[in-house]
């Protein structure tokens, strides 16, 4: 971030506010999640550093510190805080961060690239069957096994996504289509993992 604060001249960490003098700024245009956090564009992220930035910026622009300020400033704190939180959700989650990068590099959206490899579809059928069996049988061991399989599969997919996105490919590169397919697979995996979770909660409940 090369911009400086219009109030105190300090180099800005984020276009949302000045962590040095506490000034808040109206956002110009649509900064990316990376820009809002003052981070270079890229897939790799240091979660610990990200959380530290969230806390540092939060201390500067959270609406709690503007509760008795004039309405305009109060409203700006609300908006900038919401923008910061929205960006945090994108950056902190591997799949959402990858999705954001694919979009910005002109890659296909989740609805335009719907092709999935045959072998993945076969796997899906297998998992569905396993889930149904676990549901009917009430056996925790089956559920555990399925969850472990899916978790491994999820980790592998993310490794692939990382390999394809780090370093970042050129805008419009064919790798982006590949990443999109992996992200679609992730969405499916996560949906099934949520179903497993719900089933577990249900069982804990009836016990």
């Amino acid at each position: 971030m090369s911009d400086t604060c219009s109030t105190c001249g300090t180099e800005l960490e984020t276009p949302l506010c000045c962590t040095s003098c506490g000034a808040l700024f109206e956002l110009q245009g649509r900064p990316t999640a990376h820009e809002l956090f003052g981070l270079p564009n890229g897939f790799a992220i240091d979660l610990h550093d990200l959380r530290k930035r969230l806390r540092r910026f939060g201390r500067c622009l959270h609406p709690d510190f503007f509760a008795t300020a004039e309405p305009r400033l109060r409203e700006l704190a609300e908006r900038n805080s919401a923008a910061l939180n929205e960006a945090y959700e994108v950056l902190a989650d591997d799949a959402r961060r990858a999705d954001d990068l694919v979009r910005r590099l002109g890659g296909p959206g989740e609805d335009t690239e719907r092709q999935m490899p045959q072998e993945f579809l076969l796997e899906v059928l297998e998992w569905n069957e396993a889930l149904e069996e676990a549901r009917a049988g009430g056996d925790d061991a089956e559920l555990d096994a399925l969850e472990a399989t899916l978790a491994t599969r999820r980790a592998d997919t993310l490794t692939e996504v990382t390999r394809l996105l780090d370093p970042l490919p050129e805008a419009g590169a064919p790798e982006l289509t590949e990443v999109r397919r992996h992200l679609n697979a992730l969405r499916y995996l996560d949906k099934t993992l949520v179903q497993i979770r719900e089933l577990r909660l249900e069982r804990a409940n009836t016990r």
Partner: protein
Amino acid sequence: MAFIELDVLNNSPSALALGIDLGTTNSLGALWKDGRPIVLHSEGEAGNVPSVVYFPEQGPPVVGHAARRLAMFDPAHAIYSVKRFMGRGLAEVADDLADVPCPVSETANGVIQFEMRGRKYTPQELSSLILMKAHDQACRALGGMEITRAVITVPAYFDDAQRQATRDAARLAGLDVLRIVNEPTAASLAYGLDEKQQGVVCVYDLGGGTFDVSLLSIEDGVFQVLSTSGDTHLGGDDFDRALATVARAELEREVPALAATAGRPGAFSQTLRLAAEKCKIALSQAPEGELHVSLPESGIQWRRRFTRVEFDALTAPLVERTLDACRRALADAKLTPQDIDEVVLVGGSTRMPGIRARVEQFFGRKPHIELNPDEVVALGAAVQAHVLVGGTRDILLMDVTPLSLGMETMGGAVAKIIERNSSVPCQATEGFTTYADNQTGIDFNIVQGERELAADNRSLGRFKLTGIPPLPAGMARVAVRFHIDADGLLTVTAKEESTGATSRIEVQPMHGLTDGEVETMLAEAYAHAQEDFDARRAADLVTELGTMIHATERGLGNGGAELDRETRLDIDETLERARAAQANSGDDAKALQHARDELERATLPLAAVLMDGVAKSALRGRTLGEI
């Protein structure tokens, strides 16, 4: 007599803000003072304001301890646990309505109304009366200083309509609400102050009518909520009801005549409920408790002993429901019970030994109970109020929205806009387009909840988007922005992107008051203010007169013999009139004031007699009431 020393009075009231816990059973105010939050109550008074409203035959509604006492004798004119009805429609609270002793109806926007003594009251209005009382009590503890800014707490699991209703209640009470804070989060603030602690904390908050569980990470003074879950319809009341149900069944078996009255809401239910509550509290102190139902008019004195084991078995399903919510919160935060560093118990209902044991077993560690579970939420609210008035930047609270926000799609399903447990403030933008040529409006339904079908979630209301410029079908591009603010309240704005025209959004709230309705209520309250003021003055005068009568009687016993006949006669007659005024002029401030002034005049000679030489000169001109 206030116990707050003077230095706090030197602070300007505008630099201070109260923390108020608006509870289902009790409400309480607190303030930050000398580096820590303190509960505000006058000496010799209990700190809490029971959230009970009683409607006397004449005069304004009575709130708090007095209402609770009056309700014991006349349960048909009292409303308890009004918080359960905030932001709800009749159909949603059918269970709770069984304990309401008066006719209920619904406004056009689905706001419940209770009819008492020929007037209708919304839950917002009743809550505003409770808030006023809590505020009044807090201000009296501060020697009459008026602090109008406040932080009000709500259950974390409250939805938009319930939060909005709370905000409206505070507005009706004349309070300037700086923030709506979630109860478990507030509690964590009160706990997190003592040690500079780090780690993951679980707050288990079982109040009178609601249950919340929140998981927070605390680091560098930042209290970040990771997830929250709960049930806005599960609390101590339900434990009372479990006992009352057993008692009712047995009692009706023994006295069949009662069964005829049982289906009817009202006095019998209230009596049972209070008896059950007493028994529950006894069971927290001892392994056995008695449930005593007294119905003098039916000549019934019924007693039944419950053991703790029996009670725990009876209420186990309720405790399990709280643990379900805990499991859900843990799963959402991707944590297991072993990851939790500290467990904190909040809410009067966590005094039940059965709950403490089960929570300890679930998390595998002893929960914290150092702070009074009835006070910790108000104390935390005072901490947050201190932050909000600029008292410190060392503490930052980052909370979440408890429920997912979604929009009803064509097929009646829900398209998620904002996921539950997103940090607030948060925002999302959705694009809309028109499906007909020259279409200038779009209607949509916004819901809160986790269910797949829109109909299974809570509708926040119908949103009507108007002012779209007439364009061919599919050409208009309206960006609708959803913003959930730090209070957890939703605002929706819209903009047509191809022309830049600002579209208008009209909201038909569901189970909520419109701005116009709040304005009308405020205007009415203002009109009633003089009446209410007189009534309060009358109440104060009745008390004062009582004190004076008592003092005069005592004085006559000590020094009456020394008075001349005429003076004595005058005092006796005036005293008689004063007694009559105290007994009969309950709401006539003028008559009471007259009786008080007369008694003061007549007793001057008595006061003089009662003083010996030195005191006489020192106290010359003083009245009996003053010494």
